[in-house]
Structure formats: structure tokens, C-alpha cells
């Protein structure tokens, strides 16, 4: 079979534009709105209410506002790195989505090393955050960046352990094959429940959300690594963060909740129901739990989750081999 390369390039560009727009609109803009509405609901207040019907257009208005905002570059900053850092975070968040299967055939590319690819792209975010925190030349930003980076690298390992446990169960790294395997063996949330728990905790920490939002603790560190960022550059960090959060939810759906599989409703609908259920869960946690201290946070990862993950890999291996 010969491949029509120019056609494929055009298709790839289109796919990238669609996924990126999808992330910006369905992910970040709707995500922020949901976050505020759910927060209001949980705390018995109204949340945004004035722009559009029931405040539905609030984030659209916010985006327009951010687009008009002045970009302030602190005079002490390292300008080149300062401008590049938000781009790295946003693009790393986008690349995660290449391996997410929305429905049969509806995946950008089913890479052979799908799960590994996801982990690799997620690990790139750390570089962007560290660069942004450093380039601001602000004490809060740098401290926030360092804290964020040490938290993210600490939780990458339990996350990888959970991914490996799933890969062992399915015998493959490709996300589509993992979904197919769950159709045969049942959802992995049952057989791999410890891995699911580890994955959810590590994913929450990996995207810096409460109760692991220490790096951007407003009351202690102003806003963490993006303290000095204004306007759209700030929005790009937010976009990257929301893209990453939704990607984690989508990956959890794919790996543990059977992906697009489900009765009656079309596959795409099932996928979004499951994904938004996990997103809702993450937001629920945000408005429920207080923040952890840095030492508690690192202890949880290194002394509990990582050994537990490795032991769980051995248990799974034993169960499958014998």
C-alpha cells in the first residue's frame, strides 16, 4: 500500500487544529466554567451568573478579556525563556491526546507504544514549568516552580507503575488494544483496583490539583510558577493544565473504565460520560479536601505509592504467570 504523504500531512494538520480547538473550548473554557459552577454548588452559592444565560458565557467573556490584556514582562526576567515556557506546557498538554481513543476508529493515531508515549509527553510539562518559574526571576515563582517540579517527578513513578500494571494485564501498550482487552476480560478497575487508586492519586498530583496544589497555593506562594504571567500567556498555562487534567481523565477512562464500551448509547457518548464523571470527581475533591504539606505529599508518593505500585506489579505478575 502506498501512502499519499501530502494528503496525510493535510489530514494531520486538520486533526491537530480540531483537537486543539476541542481542548480550548470543551476542555479549558468549559472546564473552568464547570469548576466554578460545581464549586458554587458544593459550597451552597451560585457561582458565575451574569454573563449569558445562568452565566454560561462567563469563560467566553474571560477569554476575550484575557485577549485584550497587556503582556507585562518583568524587567528582571529572562525574556526568551519567559515567552517559551507557556508554549511548552500547552503543546505537551496537546500531544497527550494523540493516543486517546474516543470511539472505534476515532483516535488520532494508535501508536504501538501508546501508554509510554503518554507518560513521555506528560513528563515534558515539568521542563516548561521549571523554565517558567526560573525565567520570571521572582522568588515566589521560582519556589513554586521547584516545588511543582519535585512534586510532578515524584508522582510520575507511581503513575508509571499503574500504567505498567495495566499493560501487563492487557499484554500491550497500545491504548486501543487495552480497550479491546477490557471488552474480553472485564473493566480493569475491578482486576486492577489498587492500580486504579494509585493512578487516580498520582494523576491528581501530576496535574497539581487540590489536595496536591501546593505549588500554586495562592495563600502562600501568590500563584506559584505563573505569578508573573499576565494575559494570554497566563491563559496558555491554564490551557495546558486543563488539557492535562482532561487527558488524565480520558486515560483513566481508557485504561480502567473500559473506554468507549457500553450498552445502548453510542460509543462516543459513553466515552464522554465516563470522562466527565472522572472530571467531576476531581473537582469534587478540590472543594472537599484541604491542602497537604510538602513533606506529607512527598512521603505519600515515595513511601507509600511507589513501593505499593512495585509490589502490585509483582503480585499481578505472579497471578498471571502461575
Amino acid at each position, binding site marked *: 500500500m502506498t501512502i499519499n504523504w501530502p494528503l496525510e500531512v493535510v489530514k*494531520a494538520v486538520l486533526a491537530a487544529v480540531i483537537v486543539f480547538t476541542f481542548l480550548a473550548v470543551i476542555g479549558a473554557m468549559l472546564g473552568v466554567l464547570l469548576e466554578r459552577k460545581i464549586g458554587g454548588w458544593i459550597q451552597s452559592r451560585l457561582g458565575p451568573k451574569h454573563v449569558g444565560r445562568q452565566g454560561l458565557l462567563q469563560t467566553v467573556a474571560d477569554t476575550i478579556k484575557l485577549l485584550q490584556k497587556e503582556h507585562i514582562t518583568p524587567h528582571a526576567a529572562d525574556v526568551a525563556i519567559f515567552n517559551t515556557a507557556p508554549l511548552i506546557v500547552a503543546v505537551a498538554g*496537546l500531544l497527550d491526546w494523540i493516543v486517546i481513543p474516543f470511539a472505534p476508529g476515532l483516535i488520532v493515531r494508535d501508536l504501538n507504544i501508546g501508554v509510554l508515549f503518554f507518560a513521555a509527553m506528560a513528563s515534558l510539562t515539568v521542563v516548561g514549568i521549571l523554565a517558567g518559574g526560573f525565567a520570571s526571576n521572582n522568588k515566589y515563582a521560582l519556589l513554586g516552580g521547584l516545588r511543582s517540579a519535585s512534586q510532578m517527578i515524584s508522582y510520575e513513578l507511581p503513575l508509571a507503575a499503574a500504567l505498567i500494571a495495566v499493560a501487563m494485564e492487557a499484554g500491550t501498550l497500545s491504548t486501543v488494544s487495552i480497550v479491546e482487552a477490557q471488552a474480553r476480560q472485564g473493566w480493569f478497575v475491578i482486576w486492577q483496583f489498587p492500580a486504579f487508586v494509585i493512578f487516580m492519586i498520582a494523576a491528581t498530583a501530576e496535574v497539581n490539583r487540590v489536595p496536591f496544589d501546593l505549588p500554586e497555593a495562592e495563600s502562600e506562594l501568590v500563584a506559584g510558577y505563573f505569578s508573573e504571567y499576565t494575559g494570554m500567556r497566563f491563559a496558555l498555562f491554564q490551557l495546558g493544565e486543563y488539557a492535562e487534567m482532561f487527558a488524565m481523565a480520558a486515560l483513566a477512562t481508557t485504561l480502567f473504565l473500559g473506554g468507549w464500551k457500553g450498552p445502548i448509547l453510542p460509543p462516543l457518548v459513553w466515552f464522554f460520560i465516563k470522562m466527565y464523571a472522572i472530571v467531576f470527581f476531581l473537582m469534587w475533591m478540590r472543594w472537599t479536601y484541604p491542602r497537604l504539606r510538602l513533606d506529607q505529599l512527598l512521603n505519600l508518593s515515595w513511601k507509600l505509592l511507589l513501593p505499593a505500585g512495585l509490589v502490585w506489579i*509483582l503480585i499481578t505478575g505472579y497471578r498471571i504467570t502461575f
Partner: protein
Amino acid sequence: MLLLDWLYVGVFAVVGLAMAALPLAIVWALAPRFPYPQKRLTYESGVVPFGQAWAQFNVRYYLFSLVFVIFDVEVIYLYPWAIVFQALGKFAFVEMLIFLVILLVGLAYAWRKGALEWA
């Protein structure tokens, strides 16, 4: 097929960069720009900033990133093992058992020596 897969990855990276840079360009063209020294001052909770932020930090950060790198490398051996060990039977399991036990010894050592302690 492999090159086709990764063509998409490359295109995604390029288009993603372009689309992320686009709003920055819009802002550059549209948004007002009135820089003056006070505005461009580093934010330091209302106090006049002193010195540089680029000072030294706790050595703990290094120890954590060191242990992370070592275990991240360990993980790369688990990926290929995870997808073939079913086909290779007991032998493969025992090999990985040895591998993991050696590394758990390392984790225990780091724990004991306080490399995983923050305070």
C-alpha cells in the same frame, strides 16, 4: 505505517506550537502596551524587591530528583517486560523479581539514609 504514525506526532507538535503562539501574536498586535518601571518591577507582595530570585535552594530537591532519575530508568525496563512476560513464562517472572528486589533494596537504602525525608 510507523512513519505515518509519527508524522502525525510531528505535525501535532508544529501545529500546536503555532496555535498556542497565535493568541500571543493577537495580543501583541491588539493589546495596549504602556510599560513603565514600576509596572515591570518583580512582584514581591507589595515590598520593594531586593536581590535576585536566582539564589540557592535546599539540597533536598536534588536528592529527590536523583532518586527519581534512577527509578525512572528502572521503569523503562518494566515496559518491555510487561508486554512479553506472559509469553515467556516463569523464567521471565523470576528475572523481573530479581531485578525489582535489587531496586527495592535501593529504595530501602534511600529511605534509611533519609534521602526521602523532607524536613
